[in-house]
């Protein structure tokens, strides 16, 4: 069952098409993130859901109702902006009460609801402050409470954490997820930060040049990217040019690798094979069944991680290993074996 349905959305500004053939079904209570670089169209899609932009073609349904032509003020959505957008002339209390007053709720009910919302974001003590008297993190929590107070159908978050510093960002991220799950509200979150998207979402939509490149759970997106772009954008990647040898095996970095997962590939076709740095190790771990010979170029000690650059079959490969007390830094110039398992090999379409 789908609560928010985007069907065949296209959006053009003059000659520029910024969103193409965008389809998405969001289940009730689901938390979906749009992840992509700036200019990929993620914010435009969010603004079309909000009603600030009208799609050039396609339709948007919320809870079974077609809202494509409805103005933003009648869509019953809660929106949180990157720049907080609290009303500077109103106290925290009045900001949160704004949507309720507009809806014509009786005074006593407004007071109860506002108190409830301020409790939810644990800022009850700051109810009489004005936005300019608060930190960015506090303002954004108020913005969240303001968006949620009128019990909207949808919560839309437009890069709400981008303007905050690292520590606040993480704690507010966890708060957003907790509140979202408590209220069970269907939520769409826009971000360019992959860690944010992967950590907070039920599903992630990776967007590229106006299209949804891949839609999947954070684990699917990270572990099984289906396009070259997704693989490159989410996490670090070592890529190799490769060739399909037979339906059962692929050839790369001077080796034939038996890989029963990709039987549908045509023999002889050029493909790309990728390995995450953290999937590689210079020492065989239990389960590691494949290795490539190489030479250490240099290595870096990063505290929890040791990062080594290894030259394998004429190209540079990054290897990330967890630091342990007995770990030694690989020495530049030494020969090394790069170990991994068959299941860690990502096969990507060659041309994207």
């Amino acid at each position, binding site marked *: 069952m789908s609560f928010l349905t985007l069907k065949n959305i296209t959006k053009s500004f003059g000659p520029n098409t910024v969103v193409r053939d965008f389809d998405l079904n969001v289940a009730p209570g689901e938390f979906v993130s749009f992840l992509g670089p700036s200019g990929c169209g993620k914010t435009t899609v969010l603004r079309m859901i909000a009603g600030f932009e009208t799609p050039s073609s396609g339709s948007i349904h919320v809870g079974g109702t077609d809202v494509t032509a409805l103005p933003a*003020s009648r869509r019953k959505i809660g*929106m949180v*902006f990157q720049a907080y957008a609290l*009303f500077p*002339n109103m106290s925290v209390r009045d900001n949160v009460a704004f949507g309720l007053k*507009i809806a014509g709720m009786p005074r006593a009910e407004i007071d109860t609801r506002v108190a409830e919302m301020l409790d939810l974001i644990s800022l009850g*003590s700051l109810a009489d402050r004005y936005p*300019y008297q608060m930190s960015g993190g506090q303002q954004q929590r108020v913005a969240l409470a303001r968006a949620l107070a009128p019990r909207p159908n949808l919560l839309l978050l437009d890069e709400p954490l981008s303007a905050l510093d690292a520590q606040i960002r993480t704690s507010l991220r966890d708060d957003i997820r907790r509140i979202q799950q408590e209220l069970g509200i269907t939520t769409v979150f826009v971000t360019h930060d992959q860690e944010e998207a992967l950590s907070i979402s039920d599903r992630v939509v990776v967007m590229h040049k106006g299209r949804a490149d891949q839609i999947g759970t954070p684990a699917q997106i990270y572990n099984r990217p289906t396009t070259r772009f997704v693989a490159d954008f989410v996490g670090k990647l070592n890529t190799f040019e490769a060739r399909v040898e037979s339906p059962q095996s692929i050839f790369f970095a001077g080796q034939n690798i038996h890989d029963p997962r990709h039987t549908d590939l045509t023999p002889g076709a050029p493909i790309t094979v990728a390995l995450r740095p953290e999937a590689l190790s210079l020492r065989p771990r239990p389960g590691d069944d494949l290795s490539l010979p190489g030479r250490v170029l240099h290595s870096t000690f990063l505290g929890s991680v040791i990062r080594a650059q290894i030259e394998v079959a004429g190209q540079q490969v990054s290897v990330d290993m967890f630091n342990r007390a007995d770990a030694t830094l690989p020495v530049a110039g030494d020969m090394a074996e790069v170990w991994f398992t068959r299941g860690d090999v990502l096969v990507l379409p060659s041309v994207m």
Partner: protein
Amino acid sequence: MSRRFPILSALIALIGAAFFIVPLIATFNFSLRMKRGELSFEAYRSVFDSDVFLGVLGFSATASLMAILMGVLIVVPTAYWVRLRVPRARPVIEFLSLMPLIIPPVVLVFGYVRLYGSSSILPLTMTEAGTNVLLVIGYVVLSVPYMYRAVDNGMAAIDIATLTEAAESLGASRLRTIVFVIFPNIRSAIVSGAFLTFSISLGEFVITSLLNRPAFGPYLVQMGQDFAYQPAALAIMAFAFTWICMVLMEAFATRKPGQRLLPWRAPRSVTKAKS
């Protein structure tokens, strides 16, 4: 190397200040000498004694207030709409708003008289009320450069587009957004524009005189021709009034929400965060 005292700069500044202050002091001093051999406020008393003075001041103040009201109703929605919908047209609108500074008021008022004269389909100058309407419109035109700039700067200081979207997402119509969100946030800018409009309109001479209205500007000129001490007193009062306007403007412009207007009173107490 220690910095030497900038003698030359200080001297220029002093000469500049003297250029403004000496005539002011001289005028003030002169205005106090109506009674021979002593300093008194006799000239001021005689100005206030005159019924004509209070009459023209009341007329001018009313016309100025009407001009402020009309200016705000025209300029605020325009500036808002331009910023929100056609930001690219902003330089054009800004240029248009400066036109009243380029076209002399005398040209403007002759245009009015010809356009709305006895042979016009809208003969505004044929009635007292119609002429008053023309006068107010003239004041609005003269003050548009200042009002538009003040309001537009006020809107630049807040993120109009995002605040509008925030209000809309909470269910507010465009009108409610303007009334509850935009207007209160540019109130200080509007007040600045209003004071500027007021001080321009109150002493305006050209349009007022050519439309033959019983207002403060022509009265001031008439007094200057007929009397010696009273015009000096009037000039000082007009000057003081302008300064009061500036001070009030400053007070409104720097006020933050939740603060009292008068800064030396204690601001509303704020409970500290416990977390």
